């Protein structure tokens, strides 16, 4: 039973960390590219999306070349006693690279939908770029940001090709659910394959439900704006309605 649970545990760790990393990186990259207007904009934008259009095995091979013993990053890390290839962090790296474009694209689209006058209004009121992002852009783009995160979550849960190339299949260490299913079928262990498939189905439905719940624009926006102002001015203006 324990060995049955091991891929689930590894996958969950990988997926949660990957989602957190892509959440931050995706927002940062989307924000930066929306405000950047240099000549290289199209090129950088394309580079960010590249892993989405390349076959995962090609991305995996690229990562292997980067992080391998003779690769530029591998050579940097080896004096520190760190090897990425065939280690657990490799599952996170490959899943992050594969999921990042989804977060980046969705968030960038959501940011572009925000009326730039509203952000400019905040700037003329003295808000720093960080405050504008935190209090205006992110709350207004929130449904898109949530959608991007959930797509990232799903994409990294299903990540197979690049992970297999970079992290391999080391039981209890790098074997994620999709890798485990593949090797279970190879070994003719149908019951483990079906068992893991059931788990994946459950997680997939749960994330779709979460997507549907959080994408309602009112959700986050309402709860965010419940500040203490309401307490001080409860006496007036509670009536609903339009005029």
């Amino acid at each position, binding site marked *: 039973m324990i060995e049955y649970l091991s891929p689930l545990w590894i996958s969950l760790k990988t997926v949660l960390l990957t989602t957190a990393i892509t959440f931050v990186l995706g927002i940062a990259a989307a924000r930066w590219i929306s405000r950047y207007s240099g000549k290289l904009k199209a090129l950088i934008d394309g580079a960010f999306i590249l892993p989405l259009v390349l076959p995962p095995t090609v991305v995996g091979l690229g990562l292997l070349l980067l992080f391998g013993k003779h690769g530029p990053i591998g050579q940097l890390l080896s004096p520190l006693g760190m090897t990425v290839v065939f280690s657990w962090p490799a599952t996170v790296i490959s899943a992050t690279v594969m999921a990042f474009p989804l977060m980046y694209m969705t968030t960038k689209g959501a940011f572009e939908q925000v009326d730039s006058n*509203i952000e*400019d209004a*905040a*700037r*003329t009121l003295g*808000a720093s770029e960080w405050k504008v992002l935190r209090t205006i852009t992110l709350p*207004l783009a929130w449904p898109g940001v949530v959608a991007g995160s959930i797509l990232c979550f799903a994409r990294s849960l299903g990540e197979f090709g690049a992970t297999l190339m970079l992290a391999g299949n080391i039981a209890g260490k790098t074997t994620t659910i999709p890798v485990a299913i593949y090797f279970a079928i190879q070994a003719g262990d149908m019951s483990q394959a079906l068992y893991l498939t059931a788990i994946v189905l459950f997680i997939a439905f749960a994330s779709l439900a979460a997507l549907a719940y959080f994408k309602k624009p009112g959700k986050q926006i309402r709860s965010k*704006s419940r500040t203490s102002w309401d307490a001080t001015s409860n006496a007036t*203006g509670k009536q609903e309605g*339009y005029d």
Partner: protein
Amino acid sequence: MLEVNIKRKVPGFNLDVTFSVDGEMLGILGPSGSGKTMTLQCIAGLLRPDQGLIKLNNKVLFDSSEQVSLQAQARKVGFVFQNYALFPHLSTIENIAYGMRNCQRQEIFERVQTLIDKMKLEGLQNRYPRQLSAGQQQRVAIARALATEPEVLLLDEPFSALDSMVKKQLELEVMKLQQFYSGNIILVTHDLAEAYRLCSALAIYESGKVVQFDQKQKVISSPVNKQVARITRCTNFMDGIIAEIRDSSVWVMVPDLGINLKVVANDHRNMLVNQAVTIGVRPEYIRIAQGPGQNILLSPLDSVVESIATINCYFCLDTVSGGRYYLETIFPKSDAQLLSNGQKYYLYLPPEHITIISD
């Protein structure tokens, strides 16, 4: 005191403007696409001019020669956007308090309350922008901009999205704004009447240039060129030649109509006898006379357009060259009741209300 002297080039458009405001309300008037909003964005620090100087109360906001360009956050410029740009996820009170920093909660609350009283927003504190009418949104936007105590307030076409009833009301409120806000105000608009009612000085824009910057009465009475005259609704133009200059009067021969018009021109230093000029007569100054005389034309009434308070009459004159010249007049309703189409009338063009335009 706000001094602006900036240039900014974008493909197909060249902004090059100079004007100043000193504790009053300046109206920037011009057709859409003439660079009005771009000017405001440059003042607010949302766009960067290519070169020039922007100075607000002795503080340099932008100076290309010194490589100075303050960020929008540090400029103390209040901006009311055309679409108000309220924060849709924040309530009225949170919108107004957004820009208040470095002060105690109690102080913020008191200042927000003051603005709510002044802008008549009582009872709407906890509404979200989508629950407010356009006029209410406008007032929230002004209150929000005033909350940071800006040294200049920029209003970008503030009344363009409002129906005429609400517009009148808000115009009055903007006028009253000057009683408690002592800073500079710039109002961008394409509505001459609105700008004239609210502002003391006008800057007339035409494709990125300030063609005239003056007190409003001066802009109306002596437009510098035909474009300005047209923008200020001076509709009757005639081409003429200066025939005589004597004391403060100038006689202009209009060959096409075969008439010699007397014009009162106190400043005729730049005028010469035999110089070709254009003269303009505002339609509201033309009056019906009883008989022939100086500056009086005999002309049949061609058509009548009735407005609520006035009547516009178009008189048709035959020109010497065989064409037709239409003269527009605006009469108060009471005076125009008895006019009938086709009948000839004597029209008096008052010498003190004829403008000589040199170009």
